[in-house]
Each structure stands twice: as structure tokens, then as C-alpha cells.
């Protein structure tokens, strides 16, 4: 379900740490396919699914939670940015899933008007890497406002496949 860490590192090298490749927009986020509670768009990239009653898929919720532990101290609550890091709800409109992956794994450095901003590499961080699709799915849902600010009120049950993969990934040495 998730790329193993080694694979992720290889991808980041291929992506040139997300800084040199020309950005490519992510495409239509509409969910077309479901595998064990996880949704994918027509290109096969992970995406969100919001039911008619407002319930979000488990991955969107999980992404919300992990985002607000790992990412929000820089990127602000609800992916809306802070005084020193960009609003990811806007950033993900400009690059696709593979680029997102590369930046999270390898980090990046921006110098704007003498103000260094540095995104660390999260390749070794299980709290990010075990949930990288969840994070992408949540931020993608924020980018279209399919999911509003704050904690999603309703959510799907945690899929068994998720629980199994989570335990495996978080316990891996």
C-alpha cells in the first residue's frame, strides 16, 4: 500500500529532491477507485472521498491528524500556512503526487528576499512516512475545500488493511 522507505529514497533521487523538476499540476481529484477503504483518482494517485453526509474516508481523517502533529507547526493549522511557511492547500495545486512525495522525503530549501526557509527531509521519520499518502490525501482535500477547516466531524471506520499496514510500518526497524 505504501512505498517502502528504500523505494521512497530512490524516488526522491529521481525527483531531484523536488526542486529542479518542472512542476506539474495534480489533475482531477475525483475518486474513481477504492482499495480497502483507500481511494484513487483516474491517474492512480491517492485522493479523498467525501460521502453525501459529509463523512470523510479514513485516510483523510488520518491525514488531518498526522498533519496537525508533524506539519502544522510550520505550515499552519488546516494547511493554511503560517508566518514562515507556505499554505500547503495552495502548494499542492501546483505539483503532483510524485513531487509531493519527493519533497517530503528529501526536503527543500527556498531563499526569498534573504529569508531562508528550509523544509527538512522526512525520509527517516515514520510519523510522516508511514502516513505520507494520508497527508497527501488530506492536503488535497483541503486544496479543493472538499474538507473544511478543523477536524472532520464524520469519518469512515478505520479499515483493517490500514491498521495492519500501520502496525507493520511503525514497528519496522
Amino acid at each position, binding site marked *: 500500500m505504501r512505498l517502502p522507505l528504500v523505494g521512497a529514497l530512490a524516488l526522491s533521487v529521481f525527483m531531484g529532491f523536488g526542486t529542479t523538476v518542472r512542476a506539474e499540476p495534480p489533475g482531477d481529484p475525483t475518486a474513481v477507485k477504492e482499495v480497502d477503504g483507500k481511494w484513487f483518482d483516474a491517474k492512480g494517485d491517492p485522493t479523498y472521498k467525501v460521502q453525501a453526509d459529509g463523512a470523510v474516508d479514513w485516510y483523510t481523517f488520518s491525514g488531518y491528524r498526522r498533519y496537525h*502533529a508533524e506539519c502544522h*507547526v510550520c505550515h499552519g493549522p*488546516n494547511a*493554511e500556512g503560517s508566518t*514562515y511557511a507556505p499554505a500547503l492547500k495552495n502548494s499542492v495545486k501546483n505539483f503532483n503526487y510524485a513531487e509531493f512525495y519527493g519533497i517530503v522525503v528529501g526536503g527543500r530549501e527556498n531563499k526569498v528576499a534573504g*529569508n531562508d526557509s*528550509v523544509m*527538512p527531509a522526512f525520509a527517516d521519520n515514520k*510519523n510522516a512516512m508511514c502516513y505520507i499518502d494520508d497527508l497527501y490525501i488530506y492536503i488535497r482535500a483541503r486544496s479543493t475545500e472538499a474538507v473544511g477547516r*478543523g477536524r472532520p466531524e464524520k469519518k469512515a471506520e478505520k479499515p483493517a488493511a490500514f491498521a495492519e499496514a500501520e502496525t507493520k510500518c511503525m514497528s519496522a526497524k
Partner: protein
Amino acid sequence: MHKLLLSTSVGILALFGAGVANADELLDLQKNPKDWVSPTGDYANLRYSKLKQITTENVGKLAPAWSFSTGVLRGHEGAPLVIGDVMYLHTPFPNIVYALDLNNEGKILWKYEPKQDPSVVPVMCCDTVNRGLAYGAGKIFLAQADTTLVALDAKTGKLVWSVKNGDPSKGATSTAAPHVFKDKVFVGIAGGEFGVRGSLTAYNVADGKLAWRGYSMGPDSDTLIDGEKTTHLGKPVGKDSGLNTWEGDQWQIGGGTTWGWYSYDPELNLVYYGSGNPSTWNPKQRPGDNRWSMTLWARDLDTGVAKWVYQMTPHDEWDYDGINETILANQTINGQARKTLVHFDRNGFGYTLDRVTGELLVAEKYDPAVNWATKVDMDKNSKTYGRPLVVSKYSTEQNGEDVNTKGVCPAALGSKDMQPASFSPDTGLFYVPTNHVCMDYEPFRVSYTAGQPYVGATLEMFPPPGETNMGNFIAWDARVGKIVWSNKEQFSVWSGTVTTAGGLAFYGTLEGYLKAVDLKTGKELYKYKTPSGIIGNVITYEHKGKQYVAVLSGVGGWAGIGLAAGLSKSNEGLGAVGGYKALSDYTALGGVLTVFALPDYALPIVAPAN
């Protein structure tokens, strides 16, 4: 003026020989109200000035006299130092130091800009803030973000010595101001959200040599605790209390960092400070009391050995860091004169202790919204003496992992964060900048990787139910633990205050206002909107017969994270009445020092000497 004092202390040194000299230059300097010689004004952290040219009568005519752009965006915490004719000003990362000539409208005398690896930036929780400089023995001390402590020649800005205090690749950073007490310079460490084990370290002012380091947890040899002599609430703590209140070796990544303001009592020769939250924010993952995170410390200045400790929030479940300042005021409590220590903790309780013995005298809520504990048990015969009585509904430990514990007040920001309060000996009251914010808190499993965030909880913050103001500026009677008056502020008051003999308290607001209020009534007498939101501390000094008030603006810090984008949940209920708007509607980034004074026409008329 200070040159004269310097030569006096040198004279004493010569008389008694270097080994036995008790001369404390800084102790003399801080008695001169014209200067502002340390990050908190004096050893006791009173933040009180005897200057009284600016009064309740004339403060309405206060006006900006000059201003200075630091050239740095990001959050500007702390305040400059003023020593004689020179002001020393710091900035957030890259941590530039400016020496400004007060005789020449702030002309730059020298500038120091360290070269630091920018990879330290993302391991700084909550913005790249720096809370200021310290002065001692002709040197200016800067604790850089990358934990390098540098001593600069105060006259030239040239590097005298430097020493590395921690490892940023493991998430250790410096945000706190160094503090000089007597012959030592004290530095703390930040990184509680990265599993850094906190410590307070003393270096010799003269040469940067390590004098001692006391860790917040670990074996007694690390914590400099004497199991038989160091006391907690009057009783010896026992052997290895910083080990056996943790599971396994979790103490090694236990947090308890030390990024606040420290104080010193020269008569008792004790250094006081608070330690921060245990890592991770998920309490289920670290069983035990997690000593000595969340603790007030009294350590011997020369040896570092702890005389007493008091853990305010055993086994933290809410990120109520205990790092806030310790204010050493002498007060009469129940008819008895006491050397007290007053501390406004993040957990919402205002503590008054006897700073000689560590006896707990008062522990009361300084924001009525505080709900996570009913009270602190003050019954000396009780098993839970000195502990907060936790309300189960708000216990993230009892509710457990993956459960969203709702409506906990205060939020992790605390009823007050590091923004220091002040004392006025004229009124006997404390003036406290506070947060008025609650939270939902959901802890979950988290994995430790060196140098990576180690958080393990998701939070949402919002004003207390039915309210719209997220801050208060209060006057507090620490003898009885009661609010005397309270002014509402739309946002958290994230600025340190100063009180003066002119009957005034000054503080800044997140929208960018510098405000002056009457100490007795809280009545607002002056406000001026500075270029950016204020998270710095207000100071006052005198130069060439004029009293000045100075404050850094430059919004950011934790306030910049939590508030710049608007608190999430609050909007739903309050949007309708328009009571709450995002901070970004009021202010933008930019570091500027603004210096205020009375215009010449408004100066009080002083009769000629003859």
C-alpha cells in the same frame, strides 16, 4: 556611569584577590534604573522600573521618538539591552546583533552576524525566535539558534569566545536569552517536541569554560540532585528520582527543556527556572510521573546542585510546559514576611512558593476558564499534596489514544506562555499577559527518530465557550491568589510587560498596539499601533534626562502559527457575530524596534537646582 562602577569592582577584586571577591558588577549595574542590563531587567525578574518621568497623567502624550528595522521578518521576541549610551539589539534567525548609538539616533556602532547552517530552522518548534542578549564583564552574550553561545566584546562586537551547547541534528536549538548571574552565564535548551533531554548549563563568563550542567531527568549524577538533601514539598526526593519515574530508558528522550527566563537570588545564591513538557505529547507512551519535567528548580549557583524542586504537572497530558519565568518578590503572606517565588504556569495556576525552602504557599487559577484540574491539593497530610486534582473528563491519559478529549482549558499555549509578567512593589501586585484559549486534544502513537518531530497529538484551539476574547491582561495578588482586575484582549497577550514608578504597566498586543494602563485600575491610558504584531517584551530606560519606552514588533512565534491562520473551530460559532477575525486581517510580518518618549512640550517641568 557603568565604567565608574566597573572600576570600583575591579578595585575590590584587587583588594581581596580574585578568588574571594564577591564583587558582582551586574548586581550594581541593575540598580541603576537608567539602564536595562539584563533580559528581564534584574536578577529577580521583577520587570519593574523606578523611572517616573512618564506618568498616568502625561502618558497620553507619549509618541514614537525613533524606530529601527531589524531587516528580519519572522517572530521577534525578547527586548534590547541598554547600557550607558549603547543599545544592544538581537534578531530571530540568523541572529544578528546590533549595537546602536543612543547619542546618535540609533546609528549602528557594530553589527555581528553569525554564519549558521540553515538546516537548524526546521527543527525550531514554533518559529525561529530568539529572546535576547545578556551582558556581563564587558561582553555581550548571544545564544544562537544552533545552540552556539558566543561572547562578543561589547565595545567592538568582536568574538571573544564561543562554545557549542547542544546538537541541532538531534533537534536541540536555542531560543532563550542567556542570563548572566555573578560570574557565570546560563543557557538553556529547546526541543521538547524533538525528544531533546533538557538541561540548564552554566559557563564561566571569563572564558566560556563549562562550570556545570544540570539535566531535567536521568540519574542523580546528571540532574545534580542529592537524593537525601534535595527536597520536593519539604521531603527528600530519594535516589535517582529522574530515572525511576520513567519507563525504561525513555528519560533519555524525555524533554523537560529549559527555554524560559531564569532568576537569581544573590543572598541565597540560588538560581531559579522551570523545565518544560515531557516528550512525547502522547501521555500513554510514557507512564510515570516523568520527573523532573514540568518542574520549578532552585539550584546552587556555584555547584548546580538542586536545593529543592517542585513538579507542578506530574505526567503531563496537555503540553503545559513549566518553563515560564520565576519572579522573586518579597511579600507578606498571612502576616509573615516571606522571600517568595511567583510563577504563572502554562497549566493555568499561579504559584507562590517560599523560595528559600520550596514550600508551596498559594496555587490558584489565574484564568477562571481553567478546567482540567479542580485545584491543587494544599493539604499537607494528603497523599496527593501539591498535585493538581485532574478532572477525568479532561484527562487525555484516561481517555486514551485515538480519543479526542474536548474542551480542555487552557489550550497547550497555556493560560500564559513565556511572555514574562511583571511586579510592582508600589501596588504589591503582578501584571500578567495571558491567553484565554481552550482546546481539543487527541493523542496517538508516535515513533522517535533523532532530529525529527516527536509530537504525538493533534490539537484544535478556540476561545472558551460563549466568549470571543482570546486574551486578558490581568492584575494578580499572589499573596492570596486572586485576580484584582482583568482587561479583555481580542487576541492572546503575547508580550512581556514592564511596570514603572510612574504608576503604569506597558504591554503589547498581537495586532501591534503598544498599550499603557493604570496599575491601580487597569484603565487604558495610551495606545499606539506599531508596524507589526507584538510578541516582544516592553522595556524602559533613561538617556540624557529623558525616559524612553521600547518594544520590538514583528509577529510570529507560536502565536504566529496558532493565530495567523485563524483558530479553526471558533469560526463556526462566532463567525455569525463577527467577533473573531484572523490575525492576518490586522498585521503582517516585519521586525521593527519602536522607541517612545514624551515630546519636549509634554515633559514635566522640573525646577532648576538653584
